[in-house]
């Protein structure tokens, strides 16, 4: 009797395995790795693409621009999402591995400075932000706000967003020791949502009602101010491929979505700024 029951167990396992085998077949794959800022765009493109091309499995990971670059250099992904340009070191490493990175600018992004919506501050100057992150300004009352300690949140140093911030705001000066580092745009926003005295920065697509974007030098980040270059902390968002993909391949079709009208609508509805204007 016991053997009978064991047989049933074995049979059910075989059944489960067979049912796995019967899930529909997918052939090609596109592996995307990199920036958490570009992640939402890549995920939306993937959904759009898989809806139109049923045979392709597009996978997206969000592990930071630095990791995206490393994956491309090691040949373990076909597209590296990056919220900064590749560094000289990375280019050299890529060339040594026989990989020729080609940049595709898929969208534009202003780096909004985020505070809790209860914060009455309307805007700051670049110098004030720098002083806050250097630890020279410690309380919101020093910049015209309430008597509240400033909690400084920053992205981790592997992120392209951090490097943009460091270059455009900090002038490559070192951040104060009590800055809190978080691993993704989403986490940065959550930290600001929950903390009254917090200040942080994230991609434009991550701004919603729960946080407040500040005016920088009197300029609010929106399509107009960012494309014209008036908003001081703006940057393009990249997807890197190894060489320009062969025309007509799945990769080519994927990487050119951003040039289409649908691609523009996707970028816009996620909250970033498209490079095309139909």
């Amino acid at each position: 009797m016991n053997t009978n029951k064991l047989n049933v167990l074995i049979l059910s396992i075989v059944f489960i395995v067979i049912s796995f085998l019967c899930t529909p077949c997918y052939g090609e794959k596109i592996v995307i790795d990199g920036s958490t800022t570009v992640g939402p765009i890549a995920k939306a493109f993937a959904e759009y693409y898989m809806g139109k091309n049923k045979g392709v499995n597009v996978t997206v990971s969000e592990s930071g621009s630095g990791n995206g670059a490393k994956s491309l250099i090691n040949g373990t992904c076909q597209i590296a999402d990056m919220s900064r340009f590749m560094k000289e070191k990375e280019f050299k490493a890529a060339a040594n591995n026989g990989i020729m990175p080609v940049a595709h600018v898929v969208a534009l992004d202003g780096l909004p400075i985020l505070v809790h919506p209860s914060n009455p501050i309307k805007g700051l100057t670049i110098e004030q932000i720098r002083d806050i992150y250097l630890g020279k300004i410690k309380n919101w009352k020093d910049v015209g706000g309430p008597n509240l300690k400033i909690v400084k949140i920053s992205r981790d140093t592997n992120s392209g967003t951090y490097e943009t911030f460091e270059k455009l705001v900090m002038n490559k000066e070192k951040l104060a020791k009590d800055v809190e580092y978080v691993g993704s745009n989403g986490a940065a926003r959550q930290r600001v949502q929950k903390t009254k005295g917090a200040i942080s920065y994230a991609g434009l697509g991550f701004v919603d009602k729960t946080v407040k974007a500040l005016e920088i030098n009197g300029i609010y980040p929106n399509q107009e101010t960012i494309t014209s270059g008036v908003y001081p902390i703006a940057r393009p968002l990249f997807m890197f491929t190894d060489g320009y993909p062969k025309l007509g391949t799945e990769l080519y079709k994927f990487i050119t979505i951003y040039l289409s009208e649908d691609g523009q609508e996707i970028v816009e509805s996620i909250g970033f700024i498209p490079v095309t204007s139909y």
Partner: protein
Amino acid sequence: MQLKTRKFINKLFSGIGITSVVIMTAFLLILLTPITYKGLGAIFFSGTIEYRMLNYKEFGHGDKENIEKEFAKAKTARAPVYLQFDSFKKEVKKLEPKKRREIKNQLKEIKEALKELLGPFPDTPIPVLLRNQYGQTRWKNAQEKLHHVLYSEEWDYSDPTKPGIQVFVPRKKYFAGTSFESFFPYLEKNIKKMLLPKFTCYWQFLTDKSKDAHFFGGIMPEILGTIYLALGAMIFAVPLGILAAIYLSEYANPGKIISFLRICMGALAGVPSIVFGLFGLAFFINTIHVSNSKSVLAGSMTLALLILPTVIRSAEEAIKAVPNTYREASLGLGAGKWHSVWTIVLPSALPGILTGTIISLGRAAGETAPIIFTAAVSVGLPLKIWETLSQPTPALSWNIYNLCTEHEAVDEIRHVQYGMVFVLIAIVLLFNLTAIIARARIMKKLRG
């Protein structure tokens, strides 16, 4: 020591013991109750007509005629809303400029909120992204969005020395004296007719793939990925682990080298899992290229390394627990060493080995760090068995983390996250339950 003191100490000790057991149970309840309650919310909820329409169009669930009939009903209820919107647009032009600007801003906000609540306006082109093609699929979220339509969220900064206070201003106020004023009470009163909420059991949450980066659909790819990874880890770790355990306990001569090996294994068991993850990336993917990208194969190998020490240790203990008389009897009857290990020692040790293995299976299913760099992705399709050799997969443990920290719309898809947590815990519990049952069965069989 006096008898009285001894009795007191005894009582004190049992008291502390009972308290700690009670605290443990309370913790377990505190932990499991919300997980179960919120997790089940992903499957059982009050779904709107938008949900039923989406599920029919994207997955083919539900009865077409019924849904279309319902949708037509909802559409009739919605028509006055849009009509009022259109007719008021003409009225706006006649207002004085200052008032017009204020009202136009309000209208823009209302339009956006209404789109989120009921889906795109009729007679406008269909949006490209799936998330913009439908209104709120869950009644609970719909109520929040309704609030956004009815009230504008503003901050009162009147006291500059203190943080502002959130105030909800009824939007009706801005439209006082216009024909649009009646829009708000109509919407509030008829919202149920427009969305037709109904209790829903979405069991396909477990078997559907996710749509539009987890906005809609189920978690099939994640469940499948988790099972693949855990079973894959077993395929590598179990044979290796059992063989090593047999060697260590039956064949090896106890000595310095063996005890050194044991220390190494103990150290291996204590290595943080993220280190295994980085090692897996550096060795399996970048050095020996088991696949040309992250893949389930590389992930399972990394997980196998992680659980190997546990498997070896538990198998060794189980083998050691087999009474020596068994071996002696077997050898006495003329069986060789290997023969007696294979036919006598291993079968008697099987319950112990099985328990250890399945508990580590549970651990492999729940680990996050080792698969971040070797196997896990945020979105992807469910894989077929042979695709696991070359393709990465979403997995429950990683996607829970990803959804709660990295997703751009965390708050709107909390239910998916809770559902994933619940399913992951259910899978791990199921593994452990199997271990207990299998163990009991084999013990019974062994006793004859």
